């Protein structure tokens, strides 16, 4: 199991500067722009320091990696990796758990709405 992200050609133009994890894996910054807005939303300045953003991105990627590894350990017992594995890992963290439930519920709603929309479309086209 490799840890390096699949899309990471070592393009020097975008390699991050001081303060971040260096040498063997040169990760192209994946989430910089979005992270800047996110950090502002959560309490940082309008323009967070680039070193800070790079560090937060590293930490987040590591967090997601570790979480996914743990979920895989649970998931391999049943075969596929499922959402429920992640929900199990999050179970102690109430805010995250509820947010995930919210997101899943919204996704269901959107699916239902799209299905209803498609059915209506069919009715209209069949009338023609």
């Amino acid at each position: 199991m490799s840890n390096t992200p699949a899309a990471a050609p070592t393009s020097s133009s975008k390699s991050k500067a001081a303060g971040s994890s260096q040498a063997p894996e040169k990760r192209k910054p994946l989430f910089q722009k979005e992270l800047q807005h996110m950090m502002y939303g959560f309490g940082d300045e309008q323009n967070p320091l680039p070193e800070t953003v790079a560090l937060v991105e590293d930490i987040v990627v590591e967090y997601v990696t570790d979480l996914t590894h743990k979920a895989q350990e649970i998931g391999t017992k049943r075969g596929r990796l499922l959402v429920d594995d992640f929900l199990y890992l999050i179970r102690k963290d109430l805010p995250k758990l509820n947010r995930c439930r919210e997101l899943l519920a919204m996704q269901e709603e959107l699916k239902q709405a799209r299905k209803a929309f498609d059915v209506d479309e069919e009715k209209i086209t069949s009338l023609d």
Partner: protein
Amino acid sequence: MHTLIKDALIDISQEQRPNGFFDLGFVINVGSISPGRDGRLEIEQTPEEDEIRALKRSQTSEEEDNMGAEFTRYPTPAKMQTILTHFTVDQMSRYESFRRSALHKSNMKKVLQSITGQKVSDTLNIVVCGIAKMFVGELVETARVEMGKKKDSGPIRPCHIRESYRRLKLQGKVPKRSVPRLFH
């Protein structure tokens, strides 16, 4: 987490603090961030907040039936609307950033697929993006609280983030690797 945001934002813009609505706005604001209650909302309430909370309790009986015990203190859309009208321009822009920002699903999908080696469903992608966003929130908020305790101000620096990451690890909010990462 709720007081974290409240305290953090109070520290940042002390000058801009209108009478009591600032606190009001952000405690309720926090309600939309993390509907999961962990009982920390009781700390440091202003009289207006007490009133608002009492109002909500009296009106949320049907909401409780619909959404379950965890959502009892979720503000109704109408209340949210009134709070939003009381926001200053600064608060509004920050709130807008908070609501609208998200990690790109395509990037997250790439990362997940390279970690798992399998195809990742869209649902999983969405959930992980949500979890990651909340984790960023925890990092930034904890960093701000730390800065507040040291009376530091200005943009968050990497040392603050490292400190906040260390704290989160102690609280057990960061998954620990069973095999420690040696060379990376």
